């Protein structure tokens, strides 16, 4: 029970929590740190070397690549690819296809995050309202969904929306006056994207609802009781008490959802059998297809650089938020 119920609830003894009560800045014995001047660096060295070598260097290499023209020939011969300056960028940015991919990715991110967060919040509020047994059922159901690997979840949805034997077509076909036999969900991009969005929202709700529900347990009961006694409607209580207290948490989970959904790859990839049509390309699949499908490694890198730049604002916001809430002392 204690494992499943309200997972993110803070406990005073939880590891990783108590440092907040300790005001670390004051408690640090200064003398010891001077004694061990080199120890912390030696300890951190292996991690730093690995991060620098396999995350930092590739990041630099990616930028460098985007100013070169690396094709299959250079890859096989091992020669340094020719420098082409901003050619890759002008090619990408001057391409209408690229801009439609950007627009699609942004629109998908906006819609899917909005639906996910609203649903997650609604489910979290619902969890506070239902009886204990129902709440446990909800948590267990969401845990199973959360635990499923992305690829498996996507395969399940591909099977359920299969045009010949999919259960979704069968069920919709049962509705009076609707003919959905052998209906293909990915002919019309709007329908295809609604399947992808459903999959992403379905898979994202557990994290959002369970985290927000844990946040809701932190809303002081006395405040809500006082408000109710004073005649506040539930809507007023939600708007004026619950949401303001929950705001930092909502910001964080929204930011994370934006980062995750903006990088959508697996779902579109699997549902489109590893060959997404142009109308199902996102920035991630587009960059991947250019690089590994067409051996245009430099063009793919340029797209990846632009993707990272587009996300930079959100990332900075997330990191600032993490610093502000004091988790990073």
């Amino acid at each position, binding site marked *: 029970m204690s494992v499943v119920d309200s997972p993110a609830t803070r406990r005073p003894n939880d590891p990783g929590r108590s440092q907040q009560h300790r005001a670390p800045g004051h408690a640090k014995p200064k003398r010891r740190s001077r004694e061990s001047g080199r*120890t912390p660096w030696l300890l951190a060295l292996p991690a730093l070397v690995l991060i620098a070598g396999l995350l930092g260097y590739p990041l630099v290499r990616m930028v460098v690549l985007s100013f070169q023209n690396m094709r299959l020939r250079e890859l096989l011969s091992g020669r340094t690819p020719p420098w082409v300056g901003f050619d890759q960028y002008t090619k990408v940015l001057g391409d209408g296809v690229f801009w439609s991919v950007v627009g699609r990715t942004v629109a998908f991110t906006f819609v899917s995050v909005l639906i996910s967060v609203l649903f997650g919040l609604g489910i979290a509020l619902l969890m506070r309202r239902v009886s204990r047994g129902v709440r446990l059922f*909800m948590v267990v159901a969401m845990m199973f969904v959360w635990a499923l690997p992305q690829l498996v979840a996507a395969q399940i949805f591909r099977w359920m929306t299969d045009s010949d034997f999919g259960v979704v077509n*069968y069920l919709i076909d049962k509705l009076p006056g609707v003919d959905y036999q052998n209906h293909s969900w990915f002919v019309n991009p709007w329908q295809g994207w609604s399947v992808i969005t459903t999959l992403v929202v379905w898979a994202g709700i557990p994290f959002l609802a369970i*985290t927000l529900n844990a946040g809701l347990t932190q809303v002081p009961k006395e405040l809500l009781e006082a408000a*109710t006694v004073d005649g506040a409607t539930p809507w007023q209580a939600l708007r004026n008490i619950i949401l303001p207290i929950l705001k930092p948490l909502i910001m964080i*989970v929204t930011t994370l959802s934006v980062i995750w959904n903006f990088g959508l790859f697996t779902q579109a990839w699997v549902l489109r059998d590893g060959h997404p049509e142009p109308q199902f390309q996102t920035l991630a699949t587009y*960059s991947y297809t250019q690089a590994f499908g067409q051996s245009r*490694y430099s063009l793919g890198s340029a797209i*990846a650089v632009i993707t990272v730049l587009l996300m930079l604002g959100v990332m900075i916001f997330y990191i600032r938020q993490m610093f502000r809430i004091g988790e990073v002392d």
Partner: protein
Amino acid sequence: MVAPAASPAAPAPASTVPLKRRRAKGDDGVITVGRSRAGTILANTAGVVFSVLMLFPVYWVLNTAFKPADEVLALEPTFWPTSPTFDNFISAFKAPLFMKDMLNGVIVTLLAVAGALVVGFLGALSIARFSFYGRKAIILVVLVVQLIPFLSLLIPLFLMLQSADLTNSLIGVSITYLVLILPYTVWTLRGFISGIPRELDEAALIDGCTRGQVFWRIILPLTGPGLVATSVYGFIQAWNEFIIINTLNSPDKQNLMAWLLQNQTTRGTAWGPLMAGAIITSIPVVIFFLIIQRNIATGLTAGAVKG
């Protein structure tokens, strides 16, 4: 108990509810003022409907996997396998490369997790237990690299591993996975180590322990549960990955996730064995996940709500 109300969104005014109901039995710590029985029934119904809808895909994969082949491809799908069979699981195990890819996945995952745990623990110790110039910079680096979409680094990583002759090898993928889970490992373990009161270290030092003894006798044992949780999370990450391994390695050097992906591109998907394979692949992840899920949620949003 008498307050009439229509929906959970608009319960009866508080004044009509007897205050005695404030703490209904079994409703642990949930506000009950202004709540009607009808509203609760409605909320419970909504909760059950929601859970059933959420579970439907999970139920459907189980349902499919236990059906005989002709029932899987029936125009009228059965909602319960009439003659449940393990055939799909058997053909998944017998499928080419399934066992090999499973073994590959285990090797790659274990190598990556073991490496990340050792390296990550030392790094976490450094930023959790020492105050030194540059500590904040390291924390910032650890936070930032978690956010870089790993997929965008795949092109340069592929080229690097290619020139080091490490593509199509389990070692190359293991190292890549190690780095993939390293930042999270450092970050989570840092939280666990900071949770151990510094006074314990100091007391031990005063009692004559060396720094090494403090590490072996205090910090390491007390971080035990954290190490377990972190390594399980790393396991899930590495086990679930398929894009990198699918790009770097040929099918006989891939893992089960990539196997599931390959399986779909062959002419006409064999849905039964595919779903059975999906279940086999998910079982370790689901079990592990259910054990440690509390830490995952807190790790991502730690401290976002001040208690």
